[in-house]
């Protein structure tokens, strides 16, 4: 089975990139690909608990994240350095997330057959 990773490095509501990334992830998972999400930099904000973007025109992307497990996307990664920079821990995140060191990122990304940037 081919593996595909979505690398998501933008804020959730500043553009549609986060939403496009999650939608692509869900489509890839439904094609039976081995899929993972890597949220980097401001991208980790999409994983925060208790988002309330209902006044904004876009979709609440955090509710889409709840579907990841249902679609078989089990691996979600962030960098410890990013969590630290935003004053967060994995406890603040909506879904189960693995925190890796920035130095492990290149190794992780090279383990996937395909990486798509959003």
């Amino acid at each position, binding site marked *: 089975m*081919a593996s*595909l990773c979505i690398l998501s490095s933008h804020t959730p509501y500043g*553009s*549609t*990139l986060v939403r*496009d990334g999650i*939608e*692509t992830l869900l*489509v*890839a998972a439904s*094609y039976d*690909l081995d899929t993972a999400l890597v949220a980097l930099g401001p991208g980790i904000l999409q994983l925060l608990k208790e988002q309330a973007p209902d006044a904004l025109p876009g979709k609440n992307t955090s509710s889409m994240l709840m579907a990841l497990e249902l679609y078989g996307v089990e691996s979600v990664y962030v960098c410890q350095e990013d969590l630290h920079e935003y004053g967060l821990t994995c406890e603040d995140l909506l879904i189960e997330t693995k925190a890796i060191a920035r130095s492990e990122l290149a190794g992780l990304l090279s383990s996937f*057959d*395909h990486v*798509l*940037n959003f």
Partner: protein
Amino acid sequence: MKYTLIIHGSPAASPSSQTALRFARTALRQGHELVRIFFLGDGVYTASRIAVAPQGEQDLYQEWRNLGVEHGLDMVVCISAALKRGLLDEQEAQRYNQPAFTVEPPFTVSGLGQLVDGTVTADRTITFGA
């Protein structure tokens, strides 16, 4: 090598589409294969058949169109990004009862499945950001 290209940027406001066009031409000239060109987000504006390029500026629509026709390229605009930006092919214009269609071959309107399929089929997928 087989490439799939993903274009996020607006042709009017970002170098994304233009850079991708130059990459596509060079790849073809060097004998590579383009599996699919996928236009996403504001990148879908590249496929607008009614866009008018200002005098003296590059007409990206015509250049992509000519390249697509010449090489039989598979050029797909993301349907969810396209519909809300008024980019509809003839079939979608009829479906939504709109007065005109703004996308025609060699561009086609389709879903993210084409992006995933193009990525998996290609040896390399190159993203041209917003």
